[in-house]
């Protein structure tokens, strides 16, 4: 049980370390790399103890209740596949964490960088250990986010920002697809746990589920046509490229396919799609690598190729192919991370990573050269390296298969040959031959930067020599987890001349050496062809800028900055809100049943107003009309006063003396203030509206007015609930001891309301004071100043 809780800690510890990383960096700068590397190293050692049990066929699982109400668990599982990945991540991670502070020495944000790296490692470990698909999704997205932060680490460069956004957008499209796929699978199987899945091949939604997971895997693992973000991601500092964009994060897609192949695999669609896309990616990446002269870009392209190769192998799905997946993954992680670190060291020590500007570094950087050579041997696939085993396994069993297998074999041989050629280029070209002057005077890299390439390069050979251990402890459990059935190993150090796989390897080597010798010619040729192609990268820019333009157009359409149009919208909504319910809920019918008018003359009663009441109403109408037609400011102000006075008189006539007095006072004050202000302004008080505006505004005004009138009539035709008024009337004297009921309501029953009202008045007063006190000759006065100068 203690062990099991430790599994969850494996995924959590790096996050804690990530939080502490900036502090560690600040207070122990020279040792920070060594200290922080302890975390992944401890995880690596902790995970080593599972090799024995897992090799014996055990599966170690643990779960933390996440949302128990929904049956959600944060479940983790260690089997051969996840253990292989987790060991690789933590092992390579320890060397990278050691390497990074030396590479970025003196960078002001190194602590932040280390935090991002460790957080990424936690996400990646969580991803490969997760059993719950939701946990997998969460960690998957976390790797995308940390990758974004790391690619954009040098955020002052536009290329880095673009690459970061591109990687985030592409991998998040896949992340969304993964979520949809996970939810679909949950609906089909009734469980979030991957370990509980059976085969989904016959399910009705199989095609959709497959499409979702394939999009997720292809975007993350940079398969054609989503491959273009990976070379751009090389904008990141080299430790990031070595860790995320070769050995770990981009392998998440491969991991997902491998993990799901017992559930989704075995169908024609599965193998067909994986073979076609994987094969295309392999060749595209391998050729792309030969096009480049930048060492880092070359390696990035070979990573695309290797990812394509792994996808192809998963698509093949045979026992040997599955075994090859495991061996190739480990071999690739070792040599590719090592070569990236070598390139980083070359870049760091010489100031360039252009292969044509480098040569003869072996004397000056002997240890770096040894690391590069060891890694390249494995990449080239000579015997006694992991790369050799990977190649043997993938060739085995294909040569006597149907034509599809032969075709796949041809693609694999060609791809491996081109990759081998790139391996030779990277390891030989900068180090051997005549010495070339470099921007910086080259010297050996510090020990922290050498440890990675040397250890990983050596590991690629040591692991191969320990054949039985490799076969029993890594290959068999890993391949069995992918196949869903025990896979026996037949790795042997013996070189068997009768095996056709060996002769295919020899063919591969021959082609690789040929391609190495003709590299310059191939490069020129590829560049000539490549410049004609319209790249997916440009499509991405077109889509992104199209999105920005679309957003801009929508914003301008809705947020046009013309006040009267905003108000038109507001009042159009008011008109609809008034008229629609009247029509839909029968309000008009209740007032005036149009279908059955009956004796309509009886309804046409003259309102029972007294003569003086008529006079007041007429006064209001006159005031209103005068405001409308006033053609000088004094008439407008006086007319405003007239309608206000009429309102006050109405209050007075219908038993509201308090209101009448207040209204009178307010009207007088309004008229006085308005007259004072308006005489100071040379305003044009007449209304200039074009005819169409007049029509629009007039219609809206009439509809709103009529709507309010009709709604009010509907209200009046109903009964009034006087409960509240009755309560106030009955209790005003006995309880509140006030005879004026309105005043009692204001200062007693609704005292807080009145307090709020006073606060509003005070706030308005303060604002007015502030506005008037602001000095007229304030600095910000652009319109007049501009007018004066222009």
């Amino acid at each position, binding site marked *: 049980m203690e062990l099991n809780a430790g599994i969850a800690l494996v995924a959590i510890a790096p996050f804690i370390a990530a939080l502490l990383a900036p502090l560690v960096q600040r207070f122990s700068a020279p040792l920070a790399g060594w200290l922080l590397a302890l975390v992944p190293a401890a995880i690596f050692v902790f995970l080593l103890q599972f090799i024995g049990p897992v090799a014996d066929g055990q599966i170690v699982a643990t779960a933390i209740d996440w949302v128990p109400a929904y049956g959600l668990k944060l479940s983790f599982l260690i089997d051969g596949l996840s253990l292989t990945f987790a060991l690789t991540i933590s092992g390579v991670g320890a060397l990278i964490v050691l390497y990074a502070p030396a590479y970025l020495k003196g960078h002001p944000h190194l602590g932040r960088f280390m935090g991002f790296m460790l957080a990424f490692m936690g996400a990646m470990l969580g991803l490969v250990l997760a059993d719950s698909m939701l946990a997998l999704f969460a960690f998957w997205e976390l790797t995308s986010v940390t990758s974004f932060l790391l690619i954009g680490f040098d955020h002052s460069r536009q290329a880095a920002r673009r690459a970061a956004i591109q990687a985030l957008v592409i991998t998040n499209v896949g992340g969304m697809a993964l979520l949809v796929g996970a939810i679909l699978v949950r609906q089909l199987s009734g469980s979030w746990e991957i370990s509980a899945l059976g085969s989904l091949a016959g399910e009705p939604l199989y095609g959709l589920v497959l499409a979702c997971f394939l999009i997720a895997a292809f975007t993350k693992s940079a398969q054609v046509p989503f491959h273009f973000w990976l070379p751009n991601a090389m904008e990141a500092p080299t430790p990031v490229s070595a860790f995320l964009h070769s050995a770990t994060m981009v392998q998440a897609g491969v991991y997902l396919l491998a993990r799901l192949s017992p559930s989704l695999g075995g169908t024609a669609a599965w193998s067909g799609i994986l073979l076609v896309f994987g094969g295309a990616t392999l060749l595209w990446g391998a050729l792309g690598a030969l096009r480049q002269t930048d060492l880092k870009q070359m390696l990035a392209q070979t990573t695309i190729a290797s990812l394509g190769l792994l996808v192809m192998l998963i698509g093949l799905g045979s026992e040997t192919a599955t075994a090859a997946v495991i061996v190739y993954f480990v071999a690739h992680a070792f040599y590719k991370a090592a070569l990236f670190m070598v390139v980083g060291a070359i870049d760091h020590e010489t100031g360039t990573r252009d292969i044509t500007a480098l040569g003869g570094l072996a004397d000056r950087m002997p240890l770096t050269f040894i690391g590069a050579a060891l890694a390249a041997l494995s990449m080239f696939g000579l015997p006694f390296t992991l790369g050799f085993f990977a190649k043997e396994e993938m060739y085995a069993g294909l040569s006597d298969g149907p034509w599809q297998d032969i075709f796949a074999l041809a693609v694999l041989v060609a791809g491996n040959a081109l990759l081998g050629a790139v391996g030779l280029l990277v390891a030989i070209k900068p180090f051997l031959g005549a010495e070339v002057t470099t921007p910086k005077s080259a010297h050996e890299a510090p020990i922290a930067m050498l440890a990675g390439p040397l250890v990983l390069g050596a590991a690629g050979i040591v692991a191969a020599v320990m054949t039985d251990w490799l076969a029993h402890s890594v290959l068999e459990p890993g391949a069995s987890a992918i196949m869903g059935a025990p896979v026996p190993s037949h790795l042997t150090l013996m070189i068997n001349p009768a095996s056709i796989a060996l002769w295919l390897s020899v063919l591969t080597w021959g082609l690789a050496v040929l391609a190495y010798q003709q590299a310059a010619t191939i490069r020129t040729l590829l560049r000539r062809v490549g410049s004609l192609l319209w790249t997916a990268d440009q499509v991405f820019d077109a889509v992104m800028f199209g999105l920005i333009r679309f*957003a801009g157009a929508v914003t301008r359409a809705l947020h046009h900055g013309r006040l009267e149009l905003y108000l038109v919208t507001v009042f159009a909504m008011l008109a609809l809100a008034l008229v629609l319910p009247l029509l839909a809920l029968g309000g008009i019918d209740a007032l005036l049943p149009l279908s059955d008018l009956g004796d309509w003359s009886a309804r046409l009663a003259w309102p029972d107003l007294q003569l003086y009441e008529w006079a007041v109403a007429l006064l209001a109408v006159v005031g209103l009309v005068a405001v409308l037609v006033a053609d000088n400011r004094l008439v407008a102000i006086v007319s405003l006063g007239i309608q206000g006075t009429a309102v006050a008189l109405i209050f007075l006539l219908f038993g509201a003396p308090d*209101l009448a007095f207040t209204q009178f006072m307010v009207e007088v004050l309004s008229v006085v203030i308005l007259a004072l202000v308006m005489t100071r302004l040379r305003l044009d008080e007449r209304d200039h509206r074009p005819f169409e505006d007049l029509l629009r505004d007039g219609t809206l005004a009439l509809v709103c007015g009529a709507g309010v009138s009709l709604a009010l009539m509907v209200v009046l035709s109903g009964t009034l609930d006087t409960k509240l008024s009755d309560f106030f009337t009955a209790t005003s004297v006995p309880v509140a001891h006030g005879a004026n009921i309105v005043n009692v309501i204001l200062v007693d029953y609704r005292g807080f309301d009145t307090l709020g009202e006073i606060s509003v008045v005070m706030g308005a007063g303060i604002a007015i004071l502030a506005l008037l006190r602001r000095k007229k000759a304030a600095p910000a006065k652009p319109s007049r100043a501009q007018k004066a100068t222009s």
Partner: protein
Amino acid sequence: MDYALAVLVGLFIALGVYLLLSRSIIRMLLGVTIFGNGVNLLIFTAGRLTREVAPIVPAGLDQPAGPIANPLPQALILTAIVIGFAMFSFLLVLAYRAYQELDADNTDTMRLAEPEDAPRPPLSY
């Protein structure tokens, strides 16, 4: 009698809306005032009209002797009138200051914050 006032309320609202839709700030201000008066009358009328009897309890009594005007809408309107006046004063001063600073009383020409030729969103990363 109530229905006649309902028609009058409609007139107030219609004129208020019409003035608010103007581009001239000062007319919008008149519109705010008239719209406010219309809404006050609306509340007043919705609480039913009673002629001449103010909601005041005569001295020496616990309850009003006969039917009185509805006191609740009156209390609400009293608050509304005061707040409406505060807002009117504020808007007036704001318009005055805007005229001084921007030399404009027309909303179409008040484009300091959102100029007509505002820059498009940047097409870069």
